[in-house]
Each structure stands twice: as structure tokens, then as C-alpha cells.
């Protein structure tokens, strides 16, 4: 092999190696040093259903932002999988923060990793935009950790407002030991404000594979309405298989197309309290919904929207204060009102979210799609 050919081969090999190992970022007509943003999400583990959906939205948002860039510079998302585990999230966060030039961190996907990583970003004064709701009260002290999903108090208020609105007097609750318990605690706190009697409250373990015994107790209580606080399709199927005829209503965690599809016929007429009904997008949502559908040939839902919003929020902020403004200026700039694509935020509020009950969209699964309901909750 001649020296020229050997050198050419080496260069080609180096280019190939670099292009497959360097972080992926789409560069449109922008140039300059990329603005690095760390992203934690759950590509594996129990939260993979959420995390992988968010990954698609993150990559799309990066592509869209880089059509114009931020003050002419591209954004570069450096993505790490936290395996749905708080310890892994902390390890991956530390490795992201060790990368020179990391401007902010987006994610993680789940509550426990968010609580774990928020303590570190807060201590190091790194802006973090979490795609989960606020978990522990202690998180309210973290003034540079912002949340794109509502706190459980708002999720609970959305359910209770609907029950009150449809004059359901006897409400049963079936909830899991994870997300469900967090919402249930908030339901218990606020329930006394409503003329509702809780006729059954049945809990099952997050790792449980069957909750038909609990569903039987719900059936025996003869409720007017059932809150199903779960991200799993199984309790919905159990309830309908036992011929529980009361309407079922569920918050945002189960409003995922794969979960609803897995519910089968049991999904029919289930009411969802969430934000995005992509089958009939509002004007403010259309750009995101159309772009997502064009890119991935499927409709997005809430978790994708939260991930997209987090990138857009950071982009708007960095365009406003400049990409090299520093953490304090970035945090101060975020800490205010923000009109997102699917909901309005107020990050100056104590819950670091500012989402109001009235911003919920109520929809019902009918004939294979989400259908927007006219009900609007009052703040």
C-alpha cells in the first residue's frame, strides 16, 4: 500500500470514527461553537416508555432550533440514559457536568431521578429543566430547577374538579405505589373541599402484575366515577373485565398511545386529564404536532410535548440573554411567565411550574383516538 493510500485510509477511518462517536447534532445554516446542553432521559428501565418518547422530541427540537440557531450558533444536545435509576442519573449528570461548556441540563424523565439530580445542579448553580412534576417539598428550594409537568396537587385538582363538575358523589380510586400514591396523597389533601365521598381507595404495588382483587373491591363499592392513578394498562382492563360500568378517569401518566392501545377495548370512553389532543391541535400546538408527525409518522403526546417545550424554553432564554450569559442570568430569565406550545407556565411560582388547573384539557378515547371534551376546570 502506498504512503498516500495509507494516509488517505487513515484519514477516512478517523473521519468515520469521529462521526460515529461524537455527539449528534443537526446543523442547518448555523455555524460557530455549538452550545452544549446536557440531557438526561430514561432510554432503558421502567421509565423507557416515557424516556424514549422524549428522546424523539428532544432530537426534533434540536433539529428545528438549528435551522436558525441561537444567535447564529447551533445547539448540541449531549444525551445520556439514566436507566430510570436515581443513582445512575446522578452518575450520568456528573459526567455531563464534567464536559466543558455545558450550559444547562434538560431532564430527567422520572420523579426519583429528578429529585436526585436537582440537588446537584442546584448546588452547582446549573440551570435544569426537568420533564417531570415537582416531587418533594424540598424541591421548591431549588430555584434554578424548573418543571415542565404539573405537581401532583394540580393533577389531583384536575380529577376532583371533573368529579365535581359531573356531579359524581361516590368516587373510588385505584392507584399504584409509585406515581399513583403521589397523586392519591394530593387527592386526600384536597378531597374535603369537594362534595365527594370516597367509597373505595385500593392500592397495588408498582411491580404487581395483576390488580383484579383490588378491582373487585372497587366494583363492590358501586362508585359513580373511578379515578385510576396508574401508568399501566392493566388496571383499566381488570376493571372492565369485572364489568365495572362507572366512567374511568385518569391523569397524564396513562395518556400515552402505546398504553392506551394496550388497554384494548377497555380504553373506550376512558377520560384523560392532560394537555395535548394532537388529533385536534390548537393553533399554538400545530407547529409542534405537524413537525413531529412529519418526522416520525406518528402523533406526539404529553411527554413528547414536555421535552420539546424544555428545549424551546431554553432556546428562547438563551436568545434573550445570550448563550454565554452565565447561570444566574439564565435562571433569572427563565423565572417568569412562558407561553408554551401546549400550556402556559409561570416559573416564578413556588412549585417552579405555575401550571393552573384551568390549563388541563379533558379528552376521551373514542373509536381509536382522543376526542376533546368541552369540560374546563376552574382555577
Amino acid at each position, binding site marked *: 500500500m502506498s504512503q498516500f493510500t495509507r494516509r488517505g485510509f487513515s484519514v477516512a477511518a478517523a473521519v468515520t470514527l469521529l462521526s460515529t462517536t461524537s455527539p449528534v447534532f443537526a446543523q442547518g445554516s448555523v455555524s460557530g461553537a455549538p452550545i452544549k446542553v446536557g440531557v438526561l432521559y430514561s432510554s432503558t428501565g421502567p421509565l423507557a416508555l416515557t424516556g*424514549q418518547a422524549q428522546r424523539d422530541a428532544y432530537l426534533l427540537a434540536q433539529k428545528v432550533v438549528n435551522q436558525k440557531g441561537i444567535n447564529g450558533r447551533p445547539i448540541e444536545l449531549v444525551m445520556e440514559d439514566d436507566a430510570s435509576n436515581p443513582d445512575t442519573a446522578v452518575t450520568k449528570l456528573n459526567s455531563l457536568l464534567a464536559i466543558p461548556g455545558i450550559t444547562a441540563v434538560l431532564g430527567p424523565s422520572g420523579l426519583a431521578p429528578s429529585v436526585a439530580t436537582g440537588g446537584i445542579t442546584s448546588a452547582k448553580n446549573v440551570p435544569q429543566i426537568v420533564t417531570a412534576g415537582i416531587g418533594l417539598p424540598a424541591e421548591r428550594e431549588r430555584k434554578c430547577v424548573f418543571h415542565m409537568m404539573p405537581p401532583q396537587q394540580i393533577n389531583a385538582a384536575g380529577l376532583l374538579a371533573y368529579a365535581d363538575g359531573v356531579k359524581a358523589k361516590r368516587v373510588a380510586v385505584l392507584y399504584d405505589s409509585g406515581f399513583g400514591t403521589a397523586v392519591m396523597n394530593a387527592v386526600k389533601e384536597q378531597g374535603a373541599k369537594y362534595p365527594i365521598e370516597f367509597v373505595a381507595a385500593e392500592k397495588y404495588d408498582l411491580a404487581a402484575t395483576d390488580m383484579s382483587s383490588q378491582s373487585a373491591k372497587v366494583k363492590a363499592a358501586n362508585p359513580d366515577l373511578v379515578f385510576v392513578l396508574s401508568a399501566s394498562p392493566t388496571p383499566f382492563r381488570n376493571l372492565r373485565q369485572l364489568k365495572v360500568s362507572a366512567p374511568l378517569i385518569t391523569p397524564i401518566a396513562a395518556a400515552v398511545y402505546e398504553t392506551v392501545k394496550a388497554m384494548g377495548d377497555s380504553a373506550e370512553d376512558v377520560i384523560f386529564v392532560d394537555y395535548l389532543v394532537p388529533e385536534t391541535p390548537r393553533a399554538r400546538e400545530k407547529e409542534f404536532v405537524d413537525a413531529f408527525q412529519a418526522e416520525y409518522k406518528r402523533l406526539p403526546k404529553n411527554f413528547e410535548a414536555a421535552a420539546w417545550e424544555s428545549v424551546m424554553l431554553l432556546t428562547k432564554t438563551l436568545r434573550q440573554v445570550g448563550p454565554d450569559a452565565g447561570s444566574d442570568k439564565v435562571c433569572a430569565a427563565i423565572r417568569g411567565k412562558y407561553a408554551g406550545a401546549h400550556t402556559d407556565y409561570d416559573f416564578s411560582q413556588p412549585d417552579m411550574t405555575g401550571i393552573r388547573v384551568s390549563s388541563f384539557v379533558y379528552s376521551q378515547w373514542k373509536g381509536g383516538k382522543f376526542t376533546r371534551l368541552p369540560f374546563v376546570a376552574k382555577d
Partner: protein
Amino acid sequence: MTSDLVFQVLASGITNGFVYALVGLGLSVIYRGSNVLNAAQGDFAIVGAMVTVVMLDRAKLPYAVSCVGGIAAGALLGALMERLVVRPMLRRKATDDSMLLATVGLGFLIAAVILVTVGKAPFFLPQFGGEKSVDLGNVTVQRHALILIATAVVVVGALALFYKSTHLGQAMKAASIDPEGATTIGIDVAAMRTATFVLGGVIGSVAGILQTPLIGVSFAMGIAVTLKGVAAAILGGLVNPMGAVAGGLILGIAESAAVLTLSSAYQNIAAMALLIVIMIVMPNGIFAGATRRGG
């Protein structure tokens, strides 16, 4: 608490109990035949179910053919586990603890492979006999649940007959009781151990296919299924496959009784507390005879 509620919850407990029994049965078969506690037994169930889902939903094959494919996948997984992991470790005189850890690791590996190849979504299979239920008074039981129970009984009976009346079954028993003696009479002990794992894989995948129409299947479920199977097997006596069946039923009914009489939050607490009490009083399980070590 009405009698309808009691019977409804009991029906759930019995259905779940038979699922636990099948998983425990597979675990016990493997343990008796090889002295390996297979922490990936639940993943045999998941693999069997997932292959069935893929063959039915993606390859559009008939349901019966897909089920056979799922069972074959479980059998193959069992054979591969024995040939590629257990046998080399036994040759190197691995301890029981090492063997257990290896099967734990295999469980995680299988879950990761399923996530990458099939995806993150949960899946359900169609119920056998259609999405129909049988009303016994005010108690509703899915037709599939009755078929599940009947199939589990058939599997248990077939297994007993297999060990008692077939040449292969008796050879597997002999190899597990006395490997050296079995070798002297021409039994290939290593092949019998492979057959044991194949049998465990078949039983595991049958459990997975039967439970998936009721509770679904996803990549992360293996460990939860395994734990219930381990509890069932230990309750009944790890070396007695029939004891595992009884253990599964006791566990399923105990869980339902806890939901009914205490609070649903105590479902796992009560069931596991019962397990611990039985283990203290009867350390070898309810139905274990003399402990035998497999080969």
C-alpha cells in the same frame, strides 16, 4: 363484605395462584434436575409471551402457530442457558451462589435484549375463548381464566406422568438423584440436564403465554414474575414440583385474602409474611420430602 366480593376476590386469587404455580413449577423442575435456582425463570415466561406477540402481531401468523413458536422459544432459551452458561460454570466448579448470580445477570440481559428488539410498550395477547366472561351469580370470571386454570392442571398432570411413565422422564430423575449411578447405566447426565432446562423453559413460556392475555407483558416484568415463582416454589418445597403448585395457590389466595380482609396496600406484605412464617416453621417447604441434590 359481601359473599359476592369474597368469591370474586377468591376467583382472582386462584387464577393468580395458578400463574405463580406454573412459574414455580418450572423453577422447581430446574432446581430438582440441576440444583440451579434459576432467577431468570420469569424471563422464560416473558420471552415465550413476547415471541408469541411478535409472531402474531408482526408476522401475522395464526394464534396457535404463534403459541407453539413462543413455547419453542422458551425451550431454546432453556437449552442455551444450560449449554452456554450452566455447563461451563459447572465444569469450573462454580458455587451455588455464583450460579444464582449468573442467572440474575441473565435475567437483566434478557430484559435489555427484549427492550432493544421488541420495544418498550406493553402488549396483550387475545384471550383464549374470546373476550368473554362467565357469570357465576354476581361473580365474573373471564373465560380465559378458566382455560388458564384447566391448562395449568393439564400441565401439572402431564409433568407427573412424564416423570413416572416415560423413559426420558425417568432418566432425568435418575440423573438428578445419582449422577454417577446414572452414568454407569449409560445415561448422559449432561444431556439430561439440558433436557431439564428445556422443560423449565417450556413450562415458563406456557405460563407467560397464559398470563399475557390477562396482565400483559413488557420487557421489565421478568423479575416480578420470577419473585412470585420463587415464593411459590419455596413455599411448596423447592425440590418438589407438585409442592410448587400448592405453594402458588397458597400465595395467590393469601394475597387476595390480604386485600379483602386488611387493606389492599398489605397485599404483598401479608403474602410475604406468610412465606417467612412457613419458612421458619417448615424450612424445606410444606411438601418437601428429603432434600435431593441434582446433577
